[in-house]
Each structure stands twice: as C-alpha cells, then as structure tokens.
C-alpha cells in the first residue's frame, strides 16, 4: 500500500489517519476513494480553517456555504440560489470540453437545490493575447461555454475577461449560475430514511475523467499533464437539459427527499456526502450502475462522467419517479438504499468491496499551512508612478486603452452566447451588471462578476476588498441593492508559504469588506495549484454579486440616454495610478500600490447612487473601474451614441485625473433640476459630487486633454477583440 498511497497523492500522515479511522488497513478501492475525497479539490483541507472567518449569515440567507449552492430569500415566497466554480485545469487541457463541462457542473449545482437556472456568468483569465496558445484557448473556451449554455437554454449574461501573461499556462475558467425557486422547493443533498432508495439518474458511466478533475485540480500543472489527456470528460448538454426538466418536475411533484449532483469523484463523493449530511449509512450495489463500457468497480466509483444525479426516493414513490424519468427519455436506476448507522458499504455482484464510515470520507483532514509574506511585495509596492514620463497626446492614449485587450468591448463574446433566452434579460451584457426581471413580480436581479487580480497581486488584502466593493458597485450602478455574494478563489500551490499568505490575506480582505458592507458569503469555491513550472498565477479571487431591484423600472444602464443632461462624478479622484491599466498598457508595468479603499466612503457613494436612482433623479450610472474616469466616460458615450463636453477643475495632472483608478466613484447623468437633491444626498454621506459638464454632440471633449469622435471610439472598442484574436 505504501507506494500506492503516495502515488494517489496521500501523505504518510493521512494514510495513518485512514488506518486509525478504520481500525484496519484500507483495501485498494477504499484507499482510492479516500485519496479523492481527501484531495484538496474535494476536502478543502488547506482552506477550510481560513474560510471560517467569512460572514455567512443574514436574516434572508436560507442556505449558506456547505451545500451545492447558497440560497437567499428575496421576498414574496421566492428564493435565489447561486454559486461560482472553477474549471481551470480541464479547460487548459481541452478548452472546449473543459469549459462546456464547467457550465454543466455549475448548472447542476443550482437545480440540485430545486431552483430553475436562469442565468450563467463566466469570469475568464487568459495569458498574453498575442500568443497563438491564448488565441486557441480563448476560442475553445468561448465556443465551449456557448455550445453547452446555449443548448440548455440558460442565458449567459455576464462575466469578465482579463489577459495577463501570468495566466499563459494556467488559464482560469470560472463559471457562475443563478437559479430561482419558490422557497418551499428548497431541497438539500441529504440522504434520509432507512430503507429509502438511492437512484442514479442520467447518463451512463464511462471512463471519463478517471483521475480527472480531483487529481488535475490538486496538482501543479506541467508536462505530465499531457498524459492525463485521455481522461477528458465530454459534455452532453442535451442530456443535461433533460435532467433539468426531469429533476424540476420530480421536485415539483414532491417525489424526492434528497438530490445531489455527481461531480468530482463521482459516485464516491455523491454517496458519502449525502449520507454524511443526513447522518445515515448507505448500501450501493455497484453492478447496477449503467455502464458505457466494461469497467472495474474502482473506476465506476470515481468516474466523473457528466450529466448524472443521485436522488433519494421513498419506495412508494419509486414507480412515479421512474415514470417521470422515462417520459424525459432518461435512464433512472435504483443502485442502493439508505441504511442505519453511518457506514458506506459498496458491493460488486454481492461481494463487499468497500465498508467505511461515510463521514470520514466526507470530512477530510484540516491543515493550518505556514504562511509568509512574499518578498516581491516590497519591491512592487515601492514603485512610485510619479517618476514616469507621460505621453503628450491624451486622446491617443485613451484610444489605446479603448482598444487594449483588457478594456475593449466584449461584444464578440456575449453575442456568441444566447443572452436573451427565457425573456428575463432587461439590461444586456455590456453594462455594469446584467439585470434579470423576475416574471410575475415587479422585481429584478442585478448580477456582476469582478476581480482585478493585479490589485490582489500588489496587495492581497486591499485588492480583495476592492473586488468585493467593485462588484457591489456594479450592482448598485444597475439599480440593485447588493444582497449576498459567491466567490471563486484561484491561487497557486498552498503548500508554499508565500502563496498561502496571499490566500490568507485575500480571505481576510474579503471577510472585512463583506462584514462592513453587510454582504453574506453564501457559497464559493477554491482552486489551488494554479501553477506551472513553479510559477503561480496572480492570486485571483473572483466575486459574483447578486443584488435585488425592488422595482424593475428602476433598473439602470451605463448609456448616456440623451443630450443636454448634466454629467456628474460621485466620489473623489486621487493621484492613484498604481496597479492601473494605464500603467500596464502604456508603461508595461504591474507595480505600485492599488488605489485606496475607504469602506465608509464606498458605502456612502453606493447609497447615494441607489437613492438617486430610486428617486428617479439619476438617469444613467456607471462605476469607474479599470481605465479610470476617462474610460468610464467613453463607455457611457459609446453605449448611448451620445457625446459630452466636460470641463474639469483639478489640481491633479491630467493623466492622473483621467486614468487613476480611484475607488468608490460613479459617473451619472441627471437633469439640471435633480442636482440640488443629489447634492444633498451626497453631502449627507460625505460623498463628493462634481458636475463635469453636459451630454450632447457626437464628440467626447474633456478640457483640452481629450477630443474624440464617439463613432471613432466606438469603432476602436468594438473591433479590437476580434482583431486581437485573429492574430
């Protein structure tokens, strides 16, 4: 066994724990199951202790972390389930299938809770846009998300995309899904009731992903990954669509006691987790699992074949359950039953091959990893942008940013996604947050994904606070009150003290921002080992924020809606070029300190903006993020096809005013008569309000710094990504 546990990625200590827990040596199948369930990917052994500091509760949180997805109450008997997940390594091996099955997995997490999936978002990180590898991966990932999501009839309504050389070998493919349900339909991944049937629904089992996700996601990525290729999972969105409909019908008819999707570690994981959550045991007859090809018991246990679900059903409902599945053309097979005690017993043609306490599989070890502040920080933080020589032609500089890979329009991406199906999308991609109406009510949801990892690299604590604040700000600019968020934490190898320090600081930043802004964290995902050849990606926490718009008529987008409106800037602009996109694109540097964040001012700016929107004063709103206020103004002009003439009175250097990424700012438009009220609202919260000028004309003019035709800016923004990807 000695070589075997090592080969399976278990440590000697972990192996001894297993022997102690069992009171005997595990057999090969059992050992394989422990190795998967105790892998970083499934057990969160390095992150669990750190994540404990996140605030997860609020009066409206119906389900926090620990289930397949978080669930919040949005009133009127309705609830919203959402979660974000990573599919980084599989996507680096096979971008189309990796991204496609990523969508498949996160969507299952949502309908597993009893919710109908209503939207997906896809935060993506790629390497150098000039490299052929990036173009190949980009094309494959976008096509995979489109291929799978479009087929399901779930609109992909948002996301974000950054290009940075740090992701050259380790791209990030994070996916978020949101679902809606009546509060009563909430169901958990629990097995209950001795004698109840364990039913496997969906696709037949094959050798997909054997040693796949869990092993891939728990090891660094290098040449060896080539050998792992045959285990790639192939997605079948058609079967997934049938599963959604069948499961929602089963739940509506109240025929299920528990429902769990099969993800990493397949049947092993689904059975042990449902049994452990319900405090029961389970007996599985493995030969009953429908197979695509001949397989060993061990392979069946850990196969990651997609589009499968595990349901717990009372015997009296069995016939009806099988009937519903039959109607949808899905296979449904009883593979076992719930038993007394807490043992997971697995049989192969009557012979017992596994007998372990389910809870010991489901709750692996917990590590407190050593952390140490990495050395690079002093160096990058000591950089002072004021020593730089800035370009003279600021109009050209703005155009350069507009056509740069990180700031140009993402239209070519979202137009490949069906972002309209289900008839809920009332603010389309391209604004700050996407807005989804909730039919049958006056309400709507605003959703946004954010995470500028350059800030996090330069200051993990502050950078992660900014990610939370920015995500909330995007929701606010769209008229929503932020309610709760999910997240995906993409980091390097946690066994390295420098990486673990980044992780700890990032989570501390997230927790502090969440607590201050009163935003519970209801679900999330950790992806470690995003490294190749010893080099880690930037620490990349991604936030997925969900907000509620009480009256959908108050939804907001970024477009300057008409001529003759006052253009105002909420919030203060400081000399903060550190970590900016300007610094990166124009000077090729990722250095300095990220912009400051004063959470009190952030909250003040957000509530001012929301109040202004609710009172009908604010007619368009856009938060300022990468590229600063100049880029924000340009986006407002392009979105509405309306120019603006602005006079700025500032002590700052023009580049600083234009391109600093100071936080807690919104560009808004309003009618003249709304100004006094907005001034009062802002003043009461200590938020600066500066009127910059008026909308109108077909140019954006700012002092004698910027003078550009809206049509030209628009053309540059819109053509850039396609041109970059053509190479």
């Amino acid at each position: 066994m000695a070589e075997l546990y090592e080969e399976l990625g278990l440590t000697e200590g972990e192996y001894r724990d297993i022997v102690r827990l069992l009171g005997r040596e595990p057999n090969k199948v059992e050992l394989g199951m422990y190795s998967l369930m105790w892998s970083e990917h499934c057990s969160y052994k390095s992150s669990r202790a750190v994540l404990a500091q996140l605030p997860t509760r609020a009066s409206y949180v119906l389900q926090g972390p620990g289930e397949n997805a978080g669930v919040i109450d949005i009133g009127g008997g309705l609830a919203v389930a959402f979660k974000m997940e990573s599919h980084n390594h599989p996507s680096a091996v096979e971008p189309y299938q990796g991204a496609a099955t990523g969508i498949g997995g996160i969507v299952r997490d949502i309908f597993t809770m009893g919710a109908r999936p209503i939207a997906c978002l896809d935060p993506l990180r790629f390497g150098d846009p000039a490299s052929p590898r990036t173009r190949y991966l980009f094309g494959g990932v976008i096509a995979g998300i489109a291929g799978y999501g479009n087929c399901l009839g779930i609109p992909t309504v948002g996301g974000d995309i950054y290009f940075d050389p740090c992701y050259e070998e380790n791209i990030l493919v994070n996916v978020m899904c949101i679902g809606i349900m009546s509060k009563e339909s909430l169901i958990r991944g629990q097995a209950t009731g001795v004698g109840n049937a364990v039913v496997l629904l969906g696709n037949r089992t094959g050798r997909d992903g054997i040693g796949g996700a869990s092993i891939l996601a728990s090891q660094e990525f290098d040449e060896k990954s080539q050998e792992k290729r045959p285990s790639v999972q192939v997605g079948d969105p058609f079967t997934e669509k049938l599963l959604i409909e069948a499961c929602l019908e089963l739940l509506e008819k109240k025929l299920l006691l528990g429902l769990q999707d099969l993800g990493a570690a397949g049947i092993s994981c689904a059975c042990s987790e449902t049994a452990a959550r319900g405090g029961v045991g389970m007996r599985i007859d493995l030969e009953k699992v429908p197979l695509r090809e001949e397989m060993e018991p061990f392979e069946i246990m850990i196969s990651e074949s997609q589009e499968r679900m595990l349901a717990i059903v009372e015997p009296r409902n069995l016939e009806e359950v099988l009937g519903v599945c039959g109607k949808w053309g899905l296979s449904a097979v009883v593979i076992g039953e719930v038993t007394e005690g807490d043992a997971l017993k697995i049989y192969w043609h009557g012979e017992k091959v596994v007998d372990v306490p389910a809870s010991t599989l489901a709750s692996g070890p917990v590590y407190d990893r050593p952390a140490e502040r990495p050395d690079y920080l002093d160096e990058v933080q000591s950089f002072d942008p004021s020593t730089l020589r800035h370009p003279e032609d600021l109009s050209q500089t703005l155009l350069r940013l507009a056509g740069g890979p990180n700031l140009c329009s993402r239209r070519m991406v979202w137009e490949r996604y069906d972002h309209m199906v289900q008839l809920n999308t009332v603010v389309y991609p391209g604004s700050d947050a996407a807005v989804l109406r909730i039919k049958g009510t006056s309400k709507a949801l605003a959703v946004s994904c954010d995470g500028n990892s350059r800030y996090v690299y330069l200051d993990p604590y502050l950078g992660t606070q900014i990610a939370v604040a920015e995500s909330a700000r995007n929701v606010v600019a769209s008229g929503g009150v932020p309610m709760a968020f999910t997240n995906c934490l993409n980091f390097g190898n946690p066994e390295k003290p420098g990486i673990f320090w980044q992780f700890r600081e990032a989570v501390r930043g997230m927790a502090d921002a969440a607590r201050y802004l009163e935003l519970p964290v209801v679900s999330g995902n950790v992806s470690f080992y995003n490294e190749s050849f010893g080099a880690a990606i930037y620490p990349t926490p991604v936030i997925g924020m969900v907000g509620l718009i009480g009256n959908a008529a108050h939804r907001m987008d970024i477009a300057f809606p008409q001529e003759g409106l006052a253009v105002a800037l909420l919030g203060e602009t400081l000399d903060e070029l550190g970590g900016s996109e300007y610094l990166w694109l124009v000077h090729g540097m990722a250095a300095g300190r990220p912009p400051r964040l004063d959470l009190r001012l952030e909250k003040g700016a957000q509530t001012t903006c929301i109040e202004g929107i609710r009172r009908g004063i604010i007619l368009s709103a856009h938060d300022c993020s990468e590229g600063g206020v100049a880029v924000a103004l340009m986006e407002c002009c392009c979105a509405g096809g309306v120019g603006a003439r602005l006079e700025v009175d500032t002590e700052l250097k023009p580049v600083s005013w234009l391109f600093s990424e100071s936080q807690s700012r919104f560009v808004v438009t309003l009618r003249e008569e709304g100004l006094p009220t907005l001034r009062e609202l802002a003043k009461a919260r200590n938020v600066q309000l500066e009127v910059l000028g008026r909308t109108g004309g077909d140019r954006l003019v700012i002092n004698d710094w910027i003078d550009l035709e809206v049509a030209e800016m628009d053309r540059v923004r819109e053509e850039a990504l396609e041109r970059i990807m053509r190479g």
Partner: protein
Amino acid sequence: MKVSVFVSPKQGVLDPAGQATLGSLKSLGFDEVSDVRIGKYITMRLEGVDAEQAEARVQEMCERLLANPIIEDFKVEIEG
C-alpha cells in the same frame, strides 16, 4: 491528388450525437443497429505533391488542425 480524412471519436469517449442517432434509428424500426459513432469525413485536393509527401503533410494537418487528438482518432486515405 484526392485525399480523404476520417475523424472519429476515440474509443471510450462519450459520443452524444452517436447516441441520439442510435436512439432515433431504433425508434424508426432499425432494430439491428447496435452502436453508432459520428465523426468527420473530410475530403481535399492537394496539388504538386506525390503520394508519399501527401501522406506526411495530411498527417500533420490532422495533428495540427483537423482532429483533436485528445478526444479523436483519425485515418488518412490517399486516392491519387
């Protein structure tokens, strides 16, 4: 020179299109069918190369573009 390339899903890799087609054939009464797999049939013309060169070049095209070696097998036929 006429060349044909046959690309098919690797053994063991899920082939949803094949499965759906099998189901449809059965429901149309073609009960004798037991397994369907759907791949690509690519034909092309090559100019100014002999059969041996063609073989090597097409092999390379398959590896680089026409097939996805992670999930697909391919074979090449030169018709001359």
